[in-house]
């Protein structure tokens, strides 16, 4: 009896592992894609679940004894304003991810729309979009964002995301446009056109589905660029006023010279968290690049 029940289970397991091995061996799923997804999944999970387990009052000034090194009571220590670092980290990480997502989604939506318009319809629209995007790409992003952020009196997470998104659309616009230009000359698009499909039908039924890997790759790029820009702005003191983010934590540690005073537990954790996010995004994007550009697979 036990042998009979064990048999199919064992058989299924071996079939399962074979299938899993097959997926892992497929050229589309590289190690870096899996590692990147795992790292980002972990941090997103922590960001979603973490805030339920901490007391936000401990992130207020004077909530704990100031400048304590990590101990059993304060696992990550406290800053010189008497805030509990673990609580700050748990509250700050989701806000940084939110800014990146808002900017990434808005930037990608604008980039996708403009890229499709530009690549598919061409002509004067294409010329205007291309010139503006090309010109803005040569502007140091930080400069433009500093002007916006310095003019805004009360900075919030949402405004921060939109500020960063103001320039996050240029790269997606360029790469989507280039892909559309190459796809619209392919034979299946010509066949669809010969079959009498409308232009919009071709755009949504033939071109869009083939753009998906590129959209995914440039979305990851946009989010990564947005978080980089946001953390930079926050570190020079232009971040949201009323919530903790990873960048504002670094700003406060700089402002109170935590580095020179040897308070590594103040600036260390945000640096580790930011690096973790960036490495995850980098691995994910190089994994997606291999799917989007199969030529890369042959090279490396």
């Amino acid at each position, binding site marked *: 009896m036990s042998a009979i029940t064990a048999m199919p289970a064992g058989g299924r397991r071996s079939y399962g592992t074979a299938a899993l091995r097959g997926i892992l061996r497929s050229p589309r799923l590289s190690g870096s894609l899996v590692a990147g997804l795992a790292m980002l999944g972990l941090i997103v999970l922590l960001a979603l679940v973490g805030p339920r387990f901490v007391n936000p009052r401990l992130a207020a000034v004077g909530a704990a004894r100031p400048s304590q090194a990590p101990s059993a009571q304060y696992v990550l220590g406290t800053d010189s304003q008497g805030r509990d670092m673990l609580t700050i980290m748990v509250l700050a990480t989701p806000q940084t991810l939110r800014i990146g997502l808002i900017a990434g989604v808005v930037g990608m939506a604008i980039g996708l729309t403009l890229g499709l318009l530009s690549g598919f319809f061409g002509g004067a629209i294409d010329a205007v979009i291309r010139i503006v995007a090309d010109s803005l790409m040569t502007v140091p992003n930080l400069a433009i964002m500093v*002007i916006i952020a310095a003019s805004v009196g009360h900075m919030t997470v949402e405004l921060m995301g939109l500020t960063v998104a103001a320039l996050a659309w240029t790269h997606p616009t360029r790469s989507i446009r280039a892909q559309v230009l190459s796809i619209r000359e392919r034979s299946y698009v010509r066949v669809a056109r010969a079959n009498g499909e409308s232009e919009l039908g071709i755009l949504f039924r033939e071109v869009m589905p083939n753009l998906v890997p590129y959209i995914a790759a440039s979305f990851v790029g946009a989010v990564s660029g947005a978080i*980089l820009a946001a953390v930079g702005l926050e570190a020079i003191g232009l971040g949201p006023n009323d919530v903790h983010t990873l960048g504002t934590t670094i700003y406060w540690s700089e402002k109170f010279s935590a580095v020179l005073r040897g308070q590594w537990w103040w600036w260390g954790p945000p640096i580790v968290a930011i690096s973790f996010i960036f490495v995850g995004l980098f691995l994910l994007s190089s994994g997606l690049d291999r799917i989007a550009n199969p030529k890369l697979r042959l090279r490396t």
Partner: protein
Amino acid sequence: MPIDYVAKRTFQLLLIVFIAVTFNFLIPRMIPGDPVESALQTKIAVSGSVSVDVQAVAAAYRAKFGLDKPLWVQYLNYWGGIFSRDLGVSLVDFPQPVIEKIQAAVPWTLGLLSLSTGIAFVLGSVLGALLAWPRAPRALHILVPPFMLLSSVPFFLLAIVLVFTFSVVVPWFPPGGGFDPVSILRFDMQTVLDVLYHAVLPALALVLGSVGFWALGMRALTISVLGEDYITFAESKGLPPQRVFLWYGMRNALLPQITSLAIALGSILSGAVLVEAIFNYPGLGGILFTAIAGKDYFVIQGIVLMLIFALALSLFVVDLIYPLVDPRIRYHA
């Protein structure tokens, strides 16, 4: 050089300058709240003099700078100011002109940026080419993961770690500043050495942060060059391997790498500004950090314009020079 190519690039340069100036002019006026008034209010709150009527002072400022005139008059005046190199005065170090502050800072940023980008570019390109070269020692390949890691982490985070490691844990280098504050800046050997000594850590942060980017890019470019017929031909001619590597491999892979340099210049500049802020370096990033903390609005605006102009101009120059260097690139008008 075809005239329409030059014309197109010149148009693009002028467009960037126009967008930047207009943007710089409009943004503060579109957003509710008055930066002049709020800066004054902070200043008064800090100095503690209650008797000052902020509204009246702000109105006087506005009249002085023509901010009470219609928008289009202000816009024309703004352009006039830029042409006469008048970017307003600092609100914190009143009445020092903004242009003076910027002129004092530009050499620092230029020096730090060109030194570290030069080192990172050369070092990264050579290492990247070696990584792709089949005859190069295998041991080099352990460099790839750290390169990937470093190239994905922002420069200024590296800067913080470097300050902690090399000025706090082992106090070898100064934690900030551009020169010894008790010395007088002269042009002698001692000053030059002192300035270089202070530049080591900021430059190291920029080099470490970008060397991986150049190495990985160069590796991919060299791999694609290696498949070309002329490499096979050069090898079968029996040319010495070093010669094939340098003059057939690297030389041809290097040119597209220069294009990446032009494209990456903007993000390198943004990164350098943040590194300077961390080190309180006397360059544009350092004074930007101070200006933001003091809400010195005209200084912030001036630096932003300066950054945009400088980058647009250098890209314009690269665009014009590049086709001369690489005949494979045709002038796309």
